[in-house]
Every structure is written in structure tokens, then in C-alpha cells.
């Protein structure tokens, strides 16, 4: 009788061989209590500002946004984006108040309105970053433009540098005129229109100096901010942006000395969340429409996108895989 030998495969693994995608702490909803320019801090009545917003972010409404079963308290964090980047540069304008006075005023006004401010983000921090890779550039690497019919891979995707559309632009009339033909205008078309188009062409950045220096658009940075709040950004597989706790008693004198995202409430729920809700002045409607055009063309890391779906499911909450469907808005008249 021959002895049967069962081959045994040794298990061999190298940690560097595994794709590493770290998980980030997640709240159920990230609520954005508006969007302010630094200059607004002089002119805006902060009590009025938060009093308009607060009723829209009460527990019942957040519960509905979070898709929580009735009776469960939502785990929610609040934030505010301060635009210290695309602010109008008026030499006559008064300089923005320093964080030492502005932040305590913001926190107090939010509290008087019956809400609370957990995180403050600075827009200019999204364009600065380690080793020539800011959050803005990180997100640029995730853009996969909606292809027109005929995009079969034989040529690199056609992109109008610095712009992103939700469809096909009008054919250029100048080229045909130059060739001596009668130029006839043809409309731009929205991809997947039914049956009429609403065509958006979004400027992501401009380069007014004509060199490599980019001025990123407000809409683009607002899209970056949504991705930050959804916990979707990774650098080398690790979390790309973490909020830093800042003691309101020890604030720096200059805005640039603040971290990209400052945690200003010690006991806040995590910055990132399964879903986001932004309560904004309706003048931001075009900006947010542009944000959605951009986010519809972001190829987020599927592992990261599924982390939120899986963790929410473990809590009995339904979260869609598609990022754009995790975003809610309340738009208020001025």
C-alpha cells in the first residue's frame, strides 16, 4: 500500500503586497452650517446668520437626512467653511478679523442660535500641501470625465484643460470659418439628456499668470470639501486630512496658522460622515450645481466608498454606494 502524501501549501504574505486603505472615524451626518468669506465676518450679522440655519438642522431633520430609524439619536458633527482663498481682493477692504476675535464670535453666535459649531475649515488649506500634492491636486487625480460616444480608448480622453462639462460642447465655429465654410451654430448637449439638455461647463482652475500657478475655482474647492466630509480622500492609502483640535483659548493671530480643519469643540462627533447636509444661502446654488457636475465625475476609491456602506449597514443604516447620492442641501433665500 502506498502512503498518500497530502501537499501542504504554506501561507506566505508580505504586508507591502496588500493594498492598504485606512478607515476614518465616521459620524452619521456632517452638517455644514453655511459658507462665509473671511470679509463677511465684518458685515454679516452672525446671530441672524445662525438663526436662519439652526431650525433646519434640528434633531428630527437630521434624523431624516441620516435615514435613521425613528427614535434613534443621530451621531452628527457640524462644520463651517471659511473662504480665505477666493475672497474678493479689494485693496480698500478692511482686513479680515483675526481668528482670536472671529472664532469665539462664531462659536458664541452658533450657540445663541441653539446649535453648535464643531469644525472650521479653511479653503486655502485645500490648495496647499506636502510635496506638491495638495487636496485639490489629489482630487484632480480622481477625475474621470464622462465620455462622449466614440470614446473607445484609442486616444487619451479629450479634456479641455481646467474645465469639466456634463456633456458635449458646441462645435467650434471658428475652425470651420477659417476653412472657408459657412459656420452654423450647433447646441451643446448634456450626456444622457431626456430629452432636453441642461449643459454645464465648469471651470476647475485658471492660470491668469500664464505659468503653472493655478487659481482653483470656488466650485472645485467646494467639491473637495464635500469629499473631505464624506471621508473619501486618502494619501498613500492613509487618511489625507485629519481635523486638529484647537483650544479656543489659545487661537493663533493669523488664519494661515490654523490647521486645514480645526476642531473647535472638544467632544465633537467625527468630521467625516456617511452623508452630508449643507445649509446654504441660495446664492451658492450655481456653485453647488457645479460641485455636483464635478462629483459625478470623481472616481472615488471603491474600497473607501464601500467602507462607509458596510459600516452604516452594521448600524442598520442604508447608505448608497454613489457619493452624489449621499449629499443633501437646504438652500435659503438671503
Amino acid at each position, binding site marked *: 500500500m502506498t502512503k498518500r502524501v497530502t501537499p501542504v501549501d504554506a501561507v506566505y504574505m508580505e504586508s507591502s503586497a496588500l493594498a492598504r486603505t485606512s478607515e476614518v472615524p465616521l459620524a452619521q451626518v456632517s452638517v455644514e452650517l453655511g459658507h462665509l468669506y473671511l470679509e463677511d465676518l465684518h458685515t454679516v450679522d452672525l446671530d441672524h446668520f445662525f438663526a436662519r440655519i439652526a431650525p433646519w438642522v434640528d434633531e428630527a431633520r437630521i434624523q431624516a437626512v441620516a435615514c435613521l430609524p425613528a427614535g434613534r439619536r443621530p451621531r452628527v458633527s457640524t462644520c463651517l467653511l471659511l473662504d480665505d482663498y477666493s475672497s474678493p481682493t479689494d485693496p480698500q477692504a478692511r482686513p479680515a478679523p483675526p481668528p482670536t476675535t472671529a472664532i469665539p464670535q462664531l462659536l458664541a453666535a452658533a450657540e445663541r442660535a441653539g446649535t453648535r459649531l464643531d469644525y472650521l475649515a479653511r479653503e486655502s488649506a485645500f490648495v496647499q500641501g506636502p510635496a506638491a500634492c495638495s487636496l485639490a491636486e489629489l482630487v484632480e487625480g480622481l477625475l474621470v470625465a*464622462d465620455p462622449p460616444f466614440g470614446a473607445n480608448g484609442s486616444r487619451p480622453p479629450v479634456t479641455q484643460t481646467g474645465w469639466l462639462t456634463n456633456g458635449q460642447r458646441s462645435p467650434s465655429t471658428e475652425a470651420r470659418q477659417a476653412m472657408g465654410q459657412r459656420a452654423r451654430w450647433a447646441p451643446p448637449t448634456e*450626456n*444622457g439628456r431626456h430629452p432636453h439638455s441642461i449643459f454645464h461647463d465648469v471651470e476647475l482652475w485658471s492660470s491668469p499668470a500664464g505659468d503653472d500657478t493655478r487659481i482653483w475655482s470656488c466650485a472645485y474647492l467646494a467639491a473637495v470639501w464635500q469629499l473631505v466630509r464624506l471621508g473619501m480622500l486618502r494619501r498613500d492609502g492613509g487618511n489625507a486630512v485629519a481635523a486638529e483640535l484647537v483650544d479656543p483659548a489659545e487661537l493663533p493671530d493669523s488664519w494661515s496658522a490654523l490647521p486645514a480643519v480645526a476642531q473647535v469643540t472638544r467632544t465633537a462627533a467625527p468630521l467625516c460622515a456617511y452623508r452630508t447636509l449643507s445649509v446654504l444661502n441660495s446664492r451658492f446654488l450655481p456653485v453647488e450645481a457645479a460641485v455636483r457636475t464635478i462629483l459625478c465625475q470623481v472616481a472615488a476609491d471603491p474600497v473607501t466608498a464601500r467602507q462607509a456602506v458596510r459600516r452604516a449597514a452594521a448600524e442598520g443604516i442604508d447608505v448608497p454606494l454613489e457619493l452624489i447620492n449621499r449629499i443633501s442641501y437646504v438652500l435659503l433665500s438671503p
Partner: protein
Amino acid sequence: MTGNSAPGPRPTLLLVEARTTLLRHSHAVNPDMAREILAFTPAASVRTTSRPLARAVSPDTVEGVYCRLPSAAGRRTEGIGTVTSRGVLIGGRIALASSRTLIAAGRPGIHARRRGWFTHLANPGILEQIGRADDDDLARGFTGPSRPGVLDLAAIASRQLDRVQAATTLNGTIPLRTARTRFRFAVHDAGPNGPAPSPSFTIDDAGVRTLVVHAALDAAEQLATLCEDIAAHDWLLTIMQRLVDGLDEPPVRAGRIERIAPAVEQLLHLWMPGAHTEPELSWVWAALEGRPGFSRQWASIVARIRNELDLSILRALSDGATPPPTTGLRRGL
């Protein structure tokens, strides 16, 4: 609780195109340099393995496509979605790029185009089919002659390989002349059970290799690795076979050894079929070893090289010279 997220499409066919060549560098690159070359995106890191053979894999890059799918029967069928590509370095020496996409039948309800591009980006690496064509027809179309306007994985893989070769850290000095090889894989979903047909391997007139396999598609990434592993070994065979075939051309014997030497030093040790293939897929390698017999062909090439080196050493000794530098090369064979 009801799911408000559309269920993902279920793929039934995986198409992979691999392009392989010699890295544009004078010698094998170390893992640190391999990581630098393949760092295509700051978001994710390059994965590396050191055993049994160094292998570095770039993060996936995603490209959107919306075009006709390759139907051998000429049926009008379109696909919308994305192709994922990556660059791979094997042994710090072989540069390879692969582009892959899973074909899934269109989801019922709203037309794939109208559902919004974001639904396609939520499941990267999948092409959703619009119109009818069965998987056999598509696989035959893909592995057959290419047609204009149809999904062109070859071009995408080729650009990805260009990107690897364009890394500024490479010195551009290549120790031996090689060529790019093209390998196409079509993997049919074998389903959970039932006997799968044997793999079929062909080389067409244009030198394109094709392999059609039936396997479970739930581990598409492992299948891509298998395809890359096979493509890299096919490239090694191709390059070495061309080299030994060229030995019968008339130049003097010393020239012959000089032509062999770089290949012996740089490539021979890279032969390791199945080194990075998951055990569940090793049967594909086993089938290829049966027919066409990859390792038999390799053994015959190595024997031929060994004989050449032996002869050159003997000839040098009988001429009364000191043993030629090829003695060291021979020791490794």
C-alpha cells in the same frame, strides 16, 4: 430596510490586454525605485512583493469609455463604463502594463447612459452592455482582428506602458534589444460549478497571443495577476527564443556570446511560472505547461544557451587562452 442604491451589474466576461517589454534601464531597479516609477497617483501606494521574485504593482488608473464592443458577428452592441489599468515591474526588469474591464449585461430599467455617469464610476472596471451580443461573440471579437471605433484596450495598455517607460528615474540604456509583446485574455465566468472547458491559447499572424479561459470572475484582480504572470513569461520565451534563433545567423562565435551574455545576466533568473498566481488559479498554468508547454520550451532554450557557453569555454581553453569571462555566466546555468 430597502436598498436605495442600485445593485451593481453582474459581470460575465473579463477582457484583459497586457503589453510587456524590457524596462528602459541599464539594470534591474530596486523596490524603492520601482515604487517611484509606479507611483501614478498620490492617493494609493504601490504594492510590492519580494518573494519568490520581486514584483511591484501600481495603483489602478481608471479611464472612461463609451463605444462599440467587439462583436465577431458584427452585431451592434455598445458598452459604457470604465477600464482599469496598472503598471507592473517584475524582477525590477520586465515592464508590463495591463488594462482590463468586466463586461456586464445592461441593468433593467433606465438606459445605462441615462442613469448618470456616477453610477458607472461607483463600480470601476465594469462596462455595462447596451444591446445584445453573447459573451462568446464578444470574446471572439476581442481576441480577433481589431476594428476601428471598437473598444481599444490595446491602446490604453500601450499608453500605460509608455507611462512606465517615461519615468524620469530611468536612464534609458537597455542592455539588449527586445520587442513589446501583446497578450489578450478573455475570461468567461465559469459560474460556481460545472466543468470548465480547457484554456485555449493561440498566437495569430500579427504575433498577438490570446488566451481564453473559463473561471470564476469574483476575483477579477487575481485573474488580472494571472494574466500578467502569463504575459510576462510569454514575453521571456519570445525574447529568448528570438535570441537563440538568431544564433544560427553567420557572425563570428565571439559575437554570439556577447549577444547571449546580457540575456543570461538579466533575464534567465526571472523564469518562475505561477510565482504570483493564486493557488486556486494554478490549474491554468498547469494546462499551459501541458500545451503549448511553456517550461519545456524554456528548458530547451536554456540548454541551447548552456551548450553555446560550454563550447565557447572549451574553444578558449583549447586555444590555450585563460578561461573567458563566460565561465562565470555558465556557472549560473
